[in-house]
């Protein structure tokens, strides 16, 4: 069949939607995880929302870093 004549091997390219969802996933996981850690620290130390803010920003920065590592040129 026609499909059998294509050269075998990996395509190696992601579709644009895949890239977008991967980036979204990293950003969400970064902010969710370190934001949650910050929330725990807030409860532990009795600070009111400072640690959660720091955690969210740190998580977003790490998420962007990972997006650049994985998807950047």
């Amino acid at each position: 069949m026609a499909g059998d004549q294509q050269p075998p091997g990996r395509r190696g390219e992601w579709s644009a939607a895949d890239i977008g969802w991967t980036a979204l996933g990293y950003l969400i996981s970064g902010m969710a995880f370190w934001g949650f850690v910050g929330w725990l620290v807030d409860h532990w130390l009795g600070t009111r929302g400072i640690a959660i803010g720091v955690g969210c920003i740190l998580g977003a920065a790490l998420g962007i870093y990972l997006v650049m590592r994985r998807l950047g040129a």
Partner: protein
Amino acid sequence: MNGQVSLLAEGTPHWWPPKVEDFFLPGWIYPWVTKFTVMVWIAVAIVILFYVVSYRNPKLVPGKAQWLAETIYSFGRDGIGTDIIGPEGVRFAPYLTSLLSFIAVMNIFGILPFFQIAPTAHIAIPVALAAVTYVLYVWVGVQKHGFLKFMKLMTIPAGAPGFMLPLLIPLEFLQNFIIRPFTLSVRLFANMFAGHFILLVFTLGGFLLLNAAVDPGLAARDRDHLPRIAGRRPAGVRVRDPDRRLPAGLTRRRALTSANRFRYKFTATPVSAA
């Protein structure tokens, strides 16, 4: 306007507002079998019957049904298996093709009259499919690399400096084990749900808008189309009455040019005062 029939004129219709009962077929086992369940059964039956019938008597030169089945299988094997997974993806061709056919049949329900919703527009179904696929994914990965190597590949980003790893490992873990199956299932769910949602907005919203516009009493009393809030005109907006006498020197033709119309509309005295 008066000729239009108000659909809500005789009280609220029985289907409004939608209820939880709308998910169930009348007379079926109440909490267990929803319309989605029945549609999934139909989809499974269609997929099984199609492949069994088209492959019951396979020929070297395929007929129409066998050709179609082989084309779908070939797409699942080459287009998904080999191209995305790699040469070893051929092993998963049967699973990928079943999944592909099943999802395709379910999605087509979204445009079939009387069904009009894809079972995949119910988040549970993409989540279940993603869970099955992810268990397979992890299992195959652990088999191939061993547990520790697999976890290392899944959680340690390549090329990151060592001091950042404690910060990055939780993120990679979350992304690869929780967020990715979630986003993959949401992608299917959101596409199908958005289609159904748009359909619903246009039909129900259309009915509501038509009914909101038709109020025979108001239409008979006033012939203007100025905005109304709860049947009343906002304060400060005066009525333009087409039968009103024109100001001296202004013919009707001139009066209706846009600039004049604006002035005419907002400086006119109401006909009752004239």
